[in-house]
């Protein structure tokens, strides 16, 4: 009807507090997926320094690794990857129709595992980094 009123998407993100587990899982999965594919492109770009010769490659990589931000970003990347993987497994289970009733619990579990692995990896990732 022409004279009806379309409220657009006002209820979408303005309502984030009311989102349920499944919805959050979807948003996070999307976000992490995009980060990962973005990273894949970057990653190949960085590795392409190998085309300019072994030294260029080693220098680029080690130069980047010397940067504190890069280390922090790496922890972030790990978290993103782990979450995407854990939730991906959850989604695969959902696809197989396993444990649908516990879908919210498994989402929280993915979050916890992600957090735990990210925290546990900090010492390893932060070794030998200059400030």
């Amino acid at each position: 009807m022409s004279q009806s009123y379309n409220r657009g998407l006002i209820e979408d993100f303005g309502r984030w507090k009311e989102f349920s587990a499944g919805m959050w899982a979807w948003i996070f999965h999307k976000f992490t997926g995009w980060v990962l594919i973005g990273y894949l492109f970057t990653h190949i770009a960085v590795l392409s320094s190998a085309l300019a010769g072994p030294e260029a490659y080693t220098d680029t990589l080690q130069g980047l690794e010397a940067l504190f931000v890069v280390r922090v970003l790496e922890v972030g990347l790990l978290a993103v990857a782990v979450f995407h993987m854990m939730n991906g497994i959850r989604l695969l289970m959902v696809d197989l129709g396993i444990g649908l009733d516990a879908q919210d619990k498994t989402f929280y579990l993915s979050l916890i595992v992600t957090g735990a692995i990210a925290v546990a990896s900090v010492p390893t990732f932060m070794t030998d980094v200059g400030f």
Partner: protein
Amino acid sequence: MSTQEQQPEPETEPETEPETQESPADPEMSGLASPQQRRLQRKAANLAERERQAAEDESNLEEDTVHLKVFRFDPEVEDKQEPRFDDFHVPFERGMTVLDALIYARDEYDSSLTFRHSCRQAICGSDAFFVNGSQHLGCKTQISELEQPVRVEPLPHQEVVKDLVVDMEHFYEQMHAVEPYMQQEDLPEGELEEMRQSRENREKIKMSTRCIWCAACMSSCNIAAGDNQYLGPAAINKAYRFAMDEREDEEIKEHRLRIIEQEHGVWRCQTQFSCTEVCPKDIPLTEHIQELKREAVKKNLKFW
């Protein structure tokens, strides 16, 4: 039963930004298994709450009124063309539902308050509203379970015709699109012979047949909001109801799978579970959609 003076008269207030509104308790976050279980638990909590409240303050008038904030819009009436929220203060009665409160507000304060409703018992599916930020049937939602003020809005993602009334045409079209009728031509001989169906098979389709076409699921689904052509959980569930019914032959089932595996069909579903959460009939919608995805894949694999 309270008989005290009410403070009537809707006050008008400009539409507030959704961001600034108070968030009600989120029952979905409680992490219990099924909606059924969750309801039972909520029920226990509410009973305790009611008792506590009753004991605490019997005479407090404030406690005994319900504060409703209702979305208003009318394309024809000048001061309603710009959507707004009206406040109503309705005397509370034990057992009062959101629908009861709306009816009271309409009959006592403002006859132009418009919403669909009929059966008052969760079977006609006309009164799905957006209450405190999620989809509920008005007649099935106890006021005592909600945080105040109770915000009542029309279903999101559907055009608003007036006040709480949304345009359901698109929803009906999607329901019709899955050919929602038995197509078995080959009936048993004999005038009074029924088709046979095993108890297990009836059990399998039972939940899916409970749908009351309230559109709460469709309105909650983010994908349906983005892709208008997406069949949506209710229509897919309707397709499931027939695809899984053993009374229809295998070819008909294949035909049904072809309908739901088209581009705007099951593959669109991102398993957000919002539909399952809000369905007032506790239909495991996501589960049904997922099962159809697997059936469709199986069928396609057969051709390879």
